[in-house]
């Protein structure tokens, strides 16, 4: 159960300005059915170029409907320059706040407004700028960067709450962290060990670690090691040279190879010898 403010509940149960303005000056559509929320915003200007009327249609949860309703109320009477300054934080504040997990609803309102203004000004339909980072929700690096900067976001979870990025499969978490670090002025920090790797990433990292760390050490004693297979978190290896005949090979395998791989690749790896 979400904790909504009375104002959110009011705008959800009694939404203002539902509908579409037929001869609208500005039209902005964002979101999709697949994403779970979508908003169509239309507005009409008066002779002094102020927003005379605004209407919305929204598919989404209570906070999406309330954010849309609030937005239409907020922009009435504004010039387009004034309206362009409305931020997602303004929408959330107008409603007395939104649950953190629902901030993306206010971002959707701001995005629709920007699109509607661009439509009126005849600016080309803006393609989502930048490179797609989150493939599940089609969010670009520029959108993430902007959300981080404008809302002073600190964590990947924050980013998910505001622009949904990272809320699906989770493969983009590293990329999101890099954007957060870059915005927050940290240079490229030593990457923390990722907790989840794809199989290909895992195998590559195991190979690199074997080549860089483990093989040189074994070779000093006249031994060698070969990667045979990786199945889940089980790493199958073959020992060669002196290692293969060494009475202490199990110690080498578990005490050295396994602990090295656990340290540098993934803590849950298990090394097994193939004869």
């Amino acid at each position, binding site marked *: 159960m979400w904790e909504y403010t009375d104002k959110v509940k009011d705008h959800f149960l009694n939404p203002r300005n539902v509908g579409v303005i037929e001869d609208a000056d500005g039209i902005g559509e964002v979101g999709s*059915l697949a994403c779970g929320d979508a908003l169509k915003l239309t507005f009409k200007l008066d002779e002094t170029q102020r927003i005379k009327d605004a209407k919305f249609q929204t*598919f989404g949860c209570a906070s999406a409907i309330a954010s849309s309703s609030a937005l239409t109320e907020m922009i009435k009477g504004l010039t387009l320059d004034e309206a362009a300054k409305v931020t997602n934080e303004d929408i959330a504040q107008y409603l007395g706040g939104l649950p953190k997990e629902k901030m993306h609803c206010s971002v959707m309102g701001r995005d629709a407004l920007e699109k509607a203004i661009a439509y009126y000004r005849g600016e080309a339909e803006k393609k989502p700028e930048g490179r797609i980072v989150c493939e599940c929700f089609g969010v670009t690096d520029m959108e993430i960067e902007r959300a981080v900067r404008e809302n002073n976001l600190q964590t990947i979870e924050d980013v998910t709450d505001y622009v949904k990025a990272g*809320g699906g499969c989770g493969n983009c978490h590293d990329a999101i962290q890099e954007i957060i670090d870059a915005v927050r002025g940290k240079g490229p920090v030593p990457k923390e060990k990722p907790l989840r790797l794809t199989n290909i990433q895992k195998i590559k990292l195991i190979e690199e670690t074997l080549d860089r760390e483990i093989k040189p050490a074994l070779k000093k004693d006249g031994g060698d090691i070969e990667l045979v297979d990786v199945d889940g978190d089980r790493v199958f290896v073959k020992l060669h040279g002196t290692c293969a005949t060494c009475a202490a090979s199990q110690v080498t395998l578990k005490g050295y190879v396994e602990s090295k791989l656990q340290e540098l690749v993934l803590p849950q790896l298990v090394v097994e010898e193939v004869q």
Partner: protein
Amino acid sequence: MDVVYVDNNATTRVAPEVIEAMLPYFGQWFGNPSSMHTFGGTVGRKLQEAREKTAAFIGAQPEEIIFTGCGTESDSTAIHAAIASNPEKKHILTSRVEHPAVKNLFEHLSKKGYRTTFIPVDRQGRLDMEALEKSLTEDTAVVSLMWANNETGVLFPIETIAPMVRDRGIVFHTDAVQAVGKIPMDVKAAGVDMLSLSGHKIHAPKGVGALYVRKGVKYSPFLIGGHQERGRRGGTENVASIIGMGRACELAADHLKMQSERVRGLRDKLEKGLLDAVPKSMVNGDRENRLPNTTNISFEYVEGESILLMMDRLGICASSGSACTSGSLEPSHVLRAMGVPFTAAHGSIRFSLSIYNTEQEIDFIIEKLPPIIAKLREMSPFWKP
């Protein structure tokens, strides 16, 4: 405002008879069933009675019942026991539509190095039996499949699956938390090795569950401690709740006919009433092989949380498989596994009835819900009347 409670797959009202049976064991009879004195021993005998009632309800022997803290504990205990008893086997198998109690445990075990298979379901939520049979290997330690799905009520053919799995020397566990009490159940006839049930889904309190472990199945405890439950689950027993569970099982046995007739009748009336009144609505899941109390209906082009909140204003309690209610950004994994289109998955509502629901309540929902959907659709940019 009266509450119209149609969310019984989430939890159920504790039956008045159950409360009555439990109360003395909070007060006067507070003894520890393990004690040597008569005072504690009396409580111990009541515990044994509860075990007999629970066992009888599912066709088991009393010594095959282990009381636990919840359905999740029963699932975890069963699956851990199966893999601990077969340490050389590294493959485990389940379905794509399990409750998080099993699904997330399997994902956890997958990270621990187990090879995991998640068997798909079809558009109606029916298990791909061919895929199941093909996936069973000599390396498979355990197969865990739910008897009834919590979101759609769809039943898996456990009686067919259990022998297929056991004939290959693989342990078969079923999460029957949603099925128990709603359909007749006989663990011996079904041939399962282990079966989980939960108190609070059958009008007993929260905080008590049970695990059936067939005599002869290798077992190792999950909670290690004292000799309670014959050393199979350490920890002083939740006496009052276990006694409540025993009473609830007795009542559930008496109510099975009511489930299959009255509750089914009300569910069918609700389903038909809503489908007739609301265009572009559809039932998710196999309507033939389904729990009698559950219906999962999608109202296209509207979002589930909005529907729930508007119903909440009228005291109607139900659930949704929409993204916004799941706490994640994606709709229910069950509906996605079934391939329910996004247009419908986001607007899915689950109604789950109990013997306490009345015809008036069903009429109330049929009267109040269609205007709510109409109002939300008027607001939706995708709705084209």
